[in-house]
């Protein structure tokens, strides 16, 4: 990611279906930036009236400067965990923006540069629960972009994890970072 406008504004969009935890992922990322990295951050969301299903999206704007417009204008990063989310938001990415998709959920990927990872499968493999896909996604996102520090995202996730699920979430996060590291290693070789 080339990232950062002149004013240091980074825009991240996390989108999927309701119930995949994308809004919670947005909140955790924002907490990592605001509380543990001391940045300015605005987190917003749109969701339908349904408890599950339907489209769901979280947006996080991170900046060193005060943030005026609170929503994403042109995303630096899009994480898409559903085909609908990918179809809807991929065209809004910046030219050199980063698209991360769950390859098991998103069959039609509009960008050759997209990062394709079996995010939900990795969640099940690492933690035993598909519900940690949002945490794997955060690991991939932060591992590839460093929008927040690794320490900050770890702290933010552990602070949010319900009692007894800390280790499970930690494993999911580590798996995300491992996927990112593997990708970066391949890129370096090429």
């Amino acid at each position, binding site marked *: 990611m080339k990232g950062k406008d002149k004013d240091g504004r980074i825009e991240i969009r996390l989108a999927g279906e309701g119930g995949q935890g994308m809004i919670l992922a947005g*909140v955790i990322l*924002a*907490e990592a930036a*605001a*509380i543990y990295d001391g940045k*300015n*951050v*605005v*987190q*917003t*969301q*749109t*969701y*339908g*009236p349904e408890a599950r299903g339907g489209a769901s999206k979280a947006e996080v704007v991170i900046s060193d400067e005060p943030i*005026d*417009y*609170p*929503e994403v*204008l042109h995303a630096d990063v899009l994480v898409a965990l559903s085909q609908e989310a990918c179809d809807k938001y991929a065209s809004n990415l910046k030219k050199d923006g980063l698209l991360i998709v769950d390859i098991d959920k998103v069959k039609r990927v509009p960008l050759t540069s997209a990062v394709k990872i079996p995010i939900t499968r990795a969640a099940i493999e690492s933690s035993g629960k598909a519900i940690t896909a949002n945490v794997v996604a955060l690991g991939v996102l932060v591992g590839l972009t460093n929008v927040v520090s690794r320490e900050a995202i770890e702290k933010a996730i552990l602070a949010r994890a319900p009692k007894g699920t800390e280790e499970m979430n930690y494993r999911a996060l580590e798996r995300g970072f491992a996927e990112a590291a593997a990708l970066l290693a391949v890129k370096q070789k090429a």
Partner: protein
Amino acid sequence: MTVRLMQGNEAVGWGAIAAGCRFYAGYPITPSTEIAEMLSRELPKLGGIFIQMEDEIASLAACIGASAGGLKAMTATSGPGFSLMQEHIGYAAMAEVPCVIVNVQRLGPSTGQPTSPSQGDVMQARWGTHGDHPIIVLYPTSVPEAFELTVTAFNLAEKYRTPVILLMDEVVGHMRERFEAPPLEEVQVVDRMGTNVPPEWYKPFGDTIGDVPPMPSFGSGYRYHITGLYHDPMGYPTQRLDEINPWIERVQRKISNHLDDILMYQEENTEDANMVIVAYGATARSARHAMKLARQHRHHVGLVTLYTIWPFPEDVIQRIGRMARRVIVPEMNLGQLALEVERLVGRHKVIRVNRADGEMVSPQMILDAIEGR
């Protein structure tokens, strides 16, 4: 409290607690529900009262009763519930009972779009209830301001014995931002004026210096009549013109004589501006973004952010109108506060930028207006 990431709605709840609110009656509705959730958790810890009522009419009625009993009281709702509350907003204005009504607006009319932002209730907040009455309406643009203006809403309600409405955008209610609550002892809190005259001498609606009669609590030995009918200084119904007119005049005066205290706005870059944006709520943030971009392209653009929208800050808008060639009014509605701006600066000077489809007014839309596209 340490630095936290906080939602706007939650900040309203903390602001209410900081201001001394110890009574909440409401009927949960998206996108305001987090306010009720938060206060249902926190108020009982402080010895306060939380009641989920059967509807919004009863909710505000309960708040008015609690306030007459001496508690600072609040309810929160959204468009459909706000429509139902209109009757009792009028009652609170007539009976001069302090209370705070939060309306986190959603796209209307009717059930509309519960999770989408709108600024569609701007005129309803002013004129939704029947009859002439003064009202104070405040409008935050961020999470920290949601806290601050909730405190201010309580302070103004107590000081002027009036209902105060906090209008908020869904975007601000649901957004999370960095927030560090000030220590409680540093929050400036105003309490209603009491009295020490003997109960038999007390006039609940009498003429007083400053036009705001003191308001002892029910149950403290002062008994008086409260009615939605026009009433005499003792609170009893009257049809006498020499009692009705002084009441009308006093109640208007208690707001209009204290505009310096009530009107809050912020001017940015207006000194050299030939174009000025007048905005409020989340739209003011789009406007500031647009202003900064426009100034990079050497457009002399200024911004006035209104934190008090009612009473309408006429003087500042009139001054802006004399100075600026164009006044741009972006709103998430089809043109409501623009009517007030047009009244003061002339229709020919005003460019309206509107959308009412549940999306924010983008900086680009405002930039297009600045560049005459």
